[in-house]
């Protein structure tokens, strides 16, 4: 340090000087693109046309949103009795649990909102002579929700069980954790490369094992019944690690005295897991579930590389549809409207995540 230099920047000047590099990149590459995305979504904006002539875009207000999400003669009714019935049961169940005070306020609201959405959303359908303007959008959203709905419980339950089993600081457990976590650091393209060949009916390891056991190999990635299951399996394999580590951290906070006391009452193993581990881990479980929902709702690579959205659109997911609409069909306006839709959903879950995170600090 140089000594004897008396003049230096004031606190305020230093602060702005230090903040400037981040604020500039933040404004240029996140805030501006975000608003520009909304701006694009309000235009009829063709990628190639605008590239040749910057004025070749028409302001059309919310038409893109209408084209993507709405249709002609859309009516509401009990069009999907199964899902809507499930929603109604959910609503009744929420009311019951709320009455008997078995749920926290947060969980009541979450369960209630999900049930309500299940009743309301599947009810929209085209009436006589009507049709959706974009026939693929809602099925794509549905596939994404299905993917999340299969992956998140899969990851959460297996990670929870494994973490509960490995909650000891020994060398063997350390090695086991490393093995489970290893796949997490691989890139999506390596994961899809491995699993594409794993699932291959001719060369795949799974097919080879089924053949030895006398079964007929399944054509995983091109069979409508199995394609979604295949990308879910690959994803669970890939992303189990973080959930497991978060659960292990949560388990560290449960004091061993509780378990010792419970052991005196003969509560060990499965009983201890059910009556002590689960209730004490509630907050961590909620956090992991919300995190996984945010992460997996943005699924792209698995669908894009393993199944190309097929067969017959059964694994087409939202981000891939945005990518295709924008860069294959050059419809940037419509793609941006879908991206805004994605942001709204992600934003809602981020707010939930933020609230849970805050509860922890208090």
């Amino acid at each position, binding site marked *: 340090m140089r000594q004897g230099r008396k003049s230096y920047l004031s606190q305020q000047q230093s602060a702005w000087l230090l903040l400037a590099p981040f604020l500039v*990149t933040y404004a240029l590459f996140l805030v501006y693109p975000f608003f520009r995305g909304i701006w694009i979504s309000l235009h009829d904006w063709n990628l190639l046309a605008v590239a040749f002539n910057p004025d070749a875009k028409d302001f059309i207000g919310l038409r893109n949103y209408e084209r993507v999400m709405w249709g002609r003669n859309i009516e509401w009714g009990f069009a999907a009795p199964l899902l809507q019935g499930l929603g109604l049961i959910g609503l009744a169940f929420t009311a019951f649990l709320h009455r008997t005070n078995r749920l926290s306020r947060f969980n009541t609201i979450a369960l209630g909102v999900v049930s309500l959405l299940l009743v309301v959303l599947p009810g929209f359908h085209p009436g006589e002579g009507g049709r959706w303007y974009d026939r693929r959008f809602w099925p794509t959203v549905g596939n994404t929700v299905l993917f999340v709905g299969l992956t998140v419980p899969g990851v959460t339950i297996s990670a929870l069980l494994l973490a509960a089993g490995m909650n000891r600081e020994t060398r063997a457990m350390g090695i*086991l954790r490393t093995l489970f976590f290893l796949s997490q650091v691989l890139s999506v393209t390596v994961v899809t*490369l491995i699993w594409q060949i794993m699932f291959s009916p001719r060369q795949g390891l799974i097919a080879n094992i089924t053949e030895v056991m006398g079964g007929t190999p399944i054509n995983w990635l091109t069979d409508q019944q199995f394609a979604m299951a295949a990308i879910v399996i690959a994803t669970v394999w890939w992303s189990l690690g973080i959930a497991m580590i978060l659960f292990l951290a949560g388990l560290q906070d449960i004091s061993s005295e509780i378990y010792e006391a419970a052991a005196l009452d003969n509560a060990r193993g499965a009983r201890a897991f059910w009556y002590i581990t689960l209730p004490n881990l509630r907050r961590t479980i909620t956090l992991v579930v919300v995190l996984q929902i945010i992460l997996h709702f943005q699924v*792209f690579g698995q669908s894009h590389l393993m199944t190309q959205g097929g067969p017959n659109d059964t694994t087409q997911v939202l981000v891939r549809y945005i990518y295709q609409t924008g860069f294959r069909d050059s419809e940037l306006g419509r793609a941006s409207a879908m991206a805004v839709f994605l*942001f709204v959903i*992600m934003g809602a879950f981020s707010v939930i995540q933020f609230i849970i995170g805050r509860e922890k600090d208090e």
Partner: protein
Amino acid sequence: MNRGYYWLVIALSIPAFIWLVPTLWMVSLSFQPNDVLARTTSSTAFGLVPLPFTADNYAALFTFGQTPWWFLNSLIVSLGMTLGVLAVSTTAGYALARLDFPFKRTILVICLVGLMVPEQAVFIPLYTMFADLGWHNSYHALILPRMAVPIGVFLMLQFFRAIPQDIEEAARLDGVGWLRIFWYILLPLARPAMMTLAILTFLYAWNDYLWPLVSAQQREYYTITLGLASIQSNFAQSEGLGRVMASGVIASLPVVILFLIFQRYVVQAMTAGGSKG
């Protein structure tokens, strides 16, 4: 340590082995000759043991094909992004955590909102913006967008907040300026947090797929992650299974080595990254 414990270890070893099998299989296939693989992938123990053995696939990777070049691109982009993120995050994190200035709360809130914006929601406007500037197919196009993500700022901010105030008060009494306090006193203290952030960023950069996919259209600017995606769609016909698998192994090597050496930091980084954005 009782008998129950050993049974538990054995019981957990089975799923752990199953978890390892896909990776092991990739490594094993990469060491088998392509003409054998064209006939069968389960020569020895379902192909999990690389017999017949060959290292030709790796030799071929380094003599033809663009894999070494893509690998170098990934290295440049990942290191550049790591340095960039570290530079903007440590400075901004320090200013927000330990300096007083007007509109500080406003800036904090604005940055917090930015955590909610996923890459997938801004990649289209970013694409048009970079296209207007003529920046696509360059290293800075691949690096810059991630520098705007505020997660690093929050990681550093939390770390700087936890350091006791008297450290810089003593220096202030000696008349040391804020910038030097940052550079000479707080930055050296922040090494563990910087390490976590560096690993988080490096892993992200190495594994990122969507942005390189839209930004790098010329094969010379592909990252290894993107390059691997481009050769896997027609792997069996053109290159041979063994060689594609060898590319996969090469693509994973840096992150796996990073993970095995700095396991604690990697786990910390990924949970921090996972739980905050």
